[in-house]
């Protein structure tokens, strides 16, 4: 039973009730529809001043009368008197922001006609209007004019729905005007429709356009801006809608692209976007000795980092030099440089005559997209809080600086503020400035360790998911209780040597759990040395073509973050059964050399073995033990032999021309209890570090030779190609101009020698800096399958070794697992699995592990960077830094103590007047004239210069994120 209390229709009055009869035809059926509308006469006007409507006011559940909404003394304006406002639908539709202004627009009547017109046009807007009515201070009231006897109008025969609604609005306004006339309150009808205004004026209603009305208000300036900005927005939106203008050139068709690639008109290649400027990319194209530049939004034409694109080389007069400006986070700056051919372009023209410009091209098509889910945060500025749960379009600012912002639609925008989220790109139309994507998932609050770690792992495509059941099923059933069989006749002992009595120990970083390698050395009766490197026998547990094998292959490598390790193999193997822990028997793969006094190899022998490590040292412990002359036990003596031989080996290697390019590694000190980062320090390298390194290199080289001999076509090796000389061009030029020095780069040997010579006695750090920059000119080392290159190309440039592989860390690198299997087959321990002699499969695996290796390195670096940032949080540090790159509007500094690189914008040098900057391109120099009072001065910044910088973290207003900010101290 439901009760509806309404007005009973007086029998006599026909006026209270309308019948509408119309006939509707659907699928051949004719239906008569009768709509009855009952009109009321008890709708109050909601004015506090009105005594007539008092009795009509509605009551709440307790029977209390609800107070009317409109104030008895509304706003007074000279032109209109004390008045209430009645805006029409279009005012709400276009200018609701202005009406929502907290200090303006009070006492507004929203007619039911307006409400229904808006609700049919936009539900979010309708909700905003409803919210306005609920806000006590704004005094907006709805008025059901369509149900009110005195204001109801019927549509005339030749009248359009819109005209009827306008008439209804006018009628309601005129009813209010007469109803309130005796109380001294006027009505102002707000409409931007000229015809409506004219008719209203004829009816004697006070009428005004919103713009005119706003002019009489005290805050008119702000409001006018809002009103006209909105009006302009509408205008421009309509323009866009009328003729969909393409922001980008259309891509060529696939068939045209393929044909043009064939005839050489366009080139294909992988696009690499600059980390300093996301509007500049480069493509390495055979036939050009420099990477081909693609610069500007239009030329990039929707290419995203990593896409395989087709580029068309531009005429030579449009060639450019590499960007001289750093793209700021601020979008506008970038847009202006891309859009207008201003001074930058003119400068370029001059420069071309001076320095040879890069070949420049534009993207005409994209062969293969490299889209992946991108991690980032929502740009706060794009979120309309007031929209609540309705769907809206927002922009994602990706973590990867090389990726453009991504537009996506979501209903949960307000919830996403300050969260790390994942968004995938779906498409990028020529008409859309930004790529369009969709929300994938929420990683958590920004700046929290969990969310940032997760973000980092995703961003570098680190496979960090838990090991699935299929993999865990491959583990030995005994679990942690697995033991080397005591019975030496056991089949597992077959072809295994018993090295349990050798004095073997391991030396690793402190706290290392996954111990891959252990060593021993002793003196042979003939006076030579026996040196053994013992590597965890991972392949005993990880058999080819099992789930665990393919999982390890897809992970490729263990990834080390500051506080975490993402394992390649399940814990049970990695930190227990394979790990060469001390005091327990473990299976190993041993490489035994006989060496003479001068570390010349007399004999090498590989065998599977069983070892029992006597001790696990940290580098520091081992160093202390070796240095402690009181220790004379055989184990320590063995270690001393190892150290002695390693020094000779190192010297030999250096003589061969191995490069010493080690970049400084930082260590994050963490608080013991909270594990929050506290401080940053540069890692100390001890002699024992190099001891282990030398023997591992030696083992790798010996194994490489062995497996290459056994499998000339399919051995898994590692090469490091010599960098093309052009890579050094810009560094050479910088060196010549700034320091008057020269590097000899033709061979690694001469490079090593000239690097040693490039020393600036005044700046001791200069040499390290130069080594860092030299490293950046080099190519990265890669795994490959021996059949894919000619033997001269096997060379490892950095280590100056003709052949090399990875053998010594099978717990954490998959390449080593392959090498183990190949070596086992090469020494006839087992027959080779067909998968290891399938060249095409091996090539595929090598590509995979190269990619994973690169990603792991970057993830590790990013993790350090994050922790350095966290360690700096809140504090202010002044540090020495060195300039390593100079741009027109800023420069990049390297802060040695933190191993941190950062951009200093010239405009940040002064908060008052933007400094005048003179960029001396030839000398890699900036003359910055600071015009601030009281002491204007000029600061010079040149490459390699040592500067003092202040490192602080600031909260980026835009993203709500902590950012390391570096400013120059002068």
């Amino acid at each position, binding site marked *: *039973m*439901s*009760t509806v209390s309404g007005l009973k229709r007086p029998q006599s009055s026909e006026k209270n009730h309308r019948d509408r009869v119309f006939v509707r035809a659907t699928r051949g059926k004719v239906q008569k529809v009768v709509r009855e509308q009952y009109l009321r006469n008890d709708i109050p006007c909601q004015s506090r001043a009105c005594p007539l409507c008092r009795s009509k006011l509605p009551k709440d*559940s*307790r029977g209390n009368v609800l107070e009317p909404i409109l104030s008895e003394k509304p706003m007074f304006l000279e032109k209109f008197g004390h008045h209430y406002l009645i805006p029409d639908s279009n005012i709400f539709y276009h200018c609701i922001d202005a009406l929502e202004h907290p200090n303006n627009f009070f006492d507004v009547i929203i007619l039911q006609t307006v409400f229904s017109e808006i609700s049919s046009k936009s539900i979010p807007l309708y909700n905003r209007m409803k919210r306005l009515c609920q806000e006590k201070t704004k005094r907006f009231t709805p008025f059901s004019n369509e149900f009110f006897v005195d204001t109801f109008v019927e549509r005339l025969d030749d009248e359009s729905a819109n005209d009827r609604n306008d008439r209804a609005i006018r009628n309601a306004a005129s009813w209010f005007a007469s109803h309130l006339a005796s109380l001294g309150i006027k009505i102002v009808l707000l409409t931007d429709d000229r015809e409506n205004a004219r008719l209203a004026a004829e009816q004697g209603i006070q009428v005004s356009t919103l713009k005119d009305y706003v002019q009489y208000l005290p805050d008119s300036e702000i409001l006018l801006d809002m009103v006209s900005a909105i009006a302009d927005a509408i205008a421009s939106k309509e323009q866009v809608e009328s003729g969909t203008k393409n922001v980008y050139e259309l891509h060529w068709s696939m068939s045209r692209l393929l044909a043009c690639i064939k005839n050489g008109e366009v080139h294909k290649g992988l696009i690499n976007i600059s980390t300093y400027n996301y509007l500049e990319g480069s493509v390495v194209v055979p036939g050009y000795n420099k990477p081909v530049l693609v610069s500007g939004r239009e030329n990039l034409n929707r290419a995203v980092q990593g896409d395989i694109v087709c580029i068309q080389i531009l005429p030579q007069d449009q060639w450019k030099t590499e960007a001289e400006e750093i793209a700021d986070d601020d979008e506008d700056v970038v847009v202006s440089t891309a859009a207008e051919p201003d001074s930058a372009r003119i400068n370029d023209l001059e420069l071309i005559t001076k320095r040879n410009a890069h070949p420049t091209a534009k993207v005409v098509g994209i062969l*293969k*997209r490299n*889209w992946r*889910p991108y991690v980032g945060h929502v740009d706060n500025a794009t979120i309309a809080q007031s929209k609540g*749960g309705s769907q809206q379009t927002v922009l994602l600012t990706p973590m990867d600086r090389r990726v453009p912002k991504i537009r*996506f*639609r*979501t*209903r*949960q925008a307000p919830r996403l503020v300050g969260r790390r989220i994942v968004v*995938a790109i*779906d*498409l990028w139309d020529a008409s859309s400035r930004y790529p*369009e*994507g*969709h*929300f*994938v*998932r*929420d990683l958590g609050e920004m700046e929290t360790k969990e969310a940032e770690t997760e973000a980092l792992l995703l961003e570098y495509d680190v*496979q*960090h*998911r*838990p*090991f*699935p*059941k*299929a*993999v*865990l099923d491959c*583990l030995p059933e005994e679990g942690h209780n697995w033991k080397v069989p005591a019975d030496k006749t056991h089949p597992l002992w077959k072809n295994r040597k018993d090295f349990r009595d050798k004095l073997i120990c391991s030396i690793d970083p402190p*706290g290392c*759990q996954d111990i891959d390698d252990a060593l021993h050395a002793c003196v042979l009766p003939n006076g030579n040395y026996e040196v053994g490197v013992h590597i965890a026998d991972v392949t005993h547990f990880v058999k080819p073509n099992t*789930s665990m094998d393919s999982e390890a292959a897809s*992970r490729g490598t263990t990834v*080390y*973050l*500051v*506080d*975490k*390790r*993402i*394992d390649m193999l*399940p*814990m*049970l193997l990695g*930190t227990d059964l394979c790990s060469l822990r001390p005091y327990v028997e473990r299976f190993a793969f041993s490489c035994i050399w006989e060496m003479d006094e001068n570390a010349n190899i007399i004999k090498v022998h590989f065998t599977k073995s069983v070892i029992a490590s006597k001790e696990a040292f940290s580098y520091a412990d081992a160093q202390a033990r070796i240095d402690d002359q009181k220790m004379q036990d055989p184990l320590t003596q063995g270690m001393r032999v190892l150290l002695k031989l390693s020094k000779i080996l190192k010297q030999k290697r250096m003589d061969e021309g191995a490069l010493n390019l080690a970049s400084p590694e930082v260590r994050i000190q963490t608080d013991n209890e909270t594990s929050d980062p506290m401080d940053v320090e540069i890692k100390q390298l001890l002699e024992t570090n190099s001891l282990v390194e030398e023997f591992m290199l030696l083992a790798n080289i010996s194994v490489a030779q062995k497996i290459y001999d056994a499998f000339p076509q399919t051995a898994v090796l590692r090469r490091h190609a010599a960098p093309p000389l052009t890579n050094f061009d810009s560094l050479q030029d910088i060196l010549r101009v700034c320091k008057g020095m020269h590097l000899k780069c033709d061979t690694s040997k001469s490079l090593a020698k000239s690097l040693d010579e490039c020393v600036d006695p005044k700046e001791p750090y200069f040499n390290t800096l130069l080594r860092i920059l030299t490293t950046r000119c080099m190519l990265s080392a890669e795994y490959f399958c021996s059949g894919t290159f000619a033997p001269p190309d096997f060379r490892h440039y950095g280590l100056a070794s003709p052949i090399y592989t990875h053998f010594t860390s099978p717990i954490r690198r998959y390449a080593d697992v392959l090498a183990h299997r190949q070596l086992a087959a090469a020494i006839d321990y087992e027959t080779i699995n067909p998968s290891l002699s399938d060249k095409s499969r091996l090539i595929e695996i090598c590509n995979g592990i190269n990619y994973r290796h690169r990603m792991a390195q970057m993830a590790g670096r990013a993790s350090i960077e994050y922790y350095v940032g966290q360690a700096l949080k809140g504090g202010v540090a002044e540090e020495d830094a060195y300039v390593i790159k100079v741009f027109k509007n800023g420069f990049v500094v390297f802060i040695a103590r933190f191993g941190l690189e950062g951009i200093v914008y010239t405009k940040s040098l002064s908060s008052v007047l933007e400094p005048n900057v003179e960029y001396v391109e030839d000398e890699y120099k900036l003359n910055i004239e600071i015009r601030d009072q009281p002491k204007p001065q000029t600061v010079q910044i040149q490459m390699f210069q040592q500067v003092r910088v202040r490192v602080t973290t600031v909260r980026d207003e835009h993203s709500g994120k902590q950012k390391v900010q570096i400013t120059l101290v002068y």
Partner: protein
Amino acid sequence: MSRHLETSLNNKEFVLNSLEKGLRLDGRQLSDFRSLEIQFGKEYGQVDVSFGHTRVMARITTEITKPYTDRPFDGIFSITTELTPLAYSAFEAGRVSDQEIVISRLIEKAVRRSNALDTESLCIISGQKCWHVRASVHFINHDGNLVDAACIAVIAALCHFRRPELTVVGEEVTVHPVEERVPVPLSILHMPICVTFSFFNNGELAIVDATLEEEDLCNGSMTITLNKNREVCQIYKAGGIIIDPSKIISCAKTAFDIAVSVCSVIQQALDEDLRKKETQYLGGSAENERS
């Protein structure tokens, strides 16, 4: 429509009289929920919810389909409910009764329309591929309060469910079998709980979690759906006696207390079962602390 036996007058009088005195046949207080039992099945997303003699099962399944054209960025979530004679002899097979429509609408509104399941995260490639998550609810036995039971079952099943992991490369989607990749949970934004009140004595008396007999005798009922963040998702009252607004407020307060306790029971059951299920992945974590 086959009718079930109406309660005898004696019985009716007895029940109503005792309710007026604050007593219920099963010894509960007026605002007591029957003790809730939740059991999960062997597979993810299977749940069996029972209180008293009411028993409901729910099961979640997924498939990959094309999203609706007007919602290219959303996955699809649908709930199917069917009342069969299995649960109660008065339900007829193959005919959609009013009660069934009401129940399915209520569940739909409570779980789907309240955005308990984040459908945006079900999108795989916008406009082309998305997950379709289907919850099918089976009523096993009817002893009153099917709506609350069904809602609990659907929510528990959603929280329990794990969907297979995916990798998307360009337009190519690979679905990894559960053995190959550890499956991932759905993104549940909140847990809406339905609490149904039955009114007696012209609205004077409101009881929670009515049994079948009490449902037959009541003057009207109202369902409040809310979550533990005190957010009311729906208040459903179709017809019946008039209720005082203040009564609704007090009902909502009772409903909140019940929702909190129901949530904790669900959570506890979930934790327990998932812990049991996860033993198979023991030692499988790839992310480990560096000491």
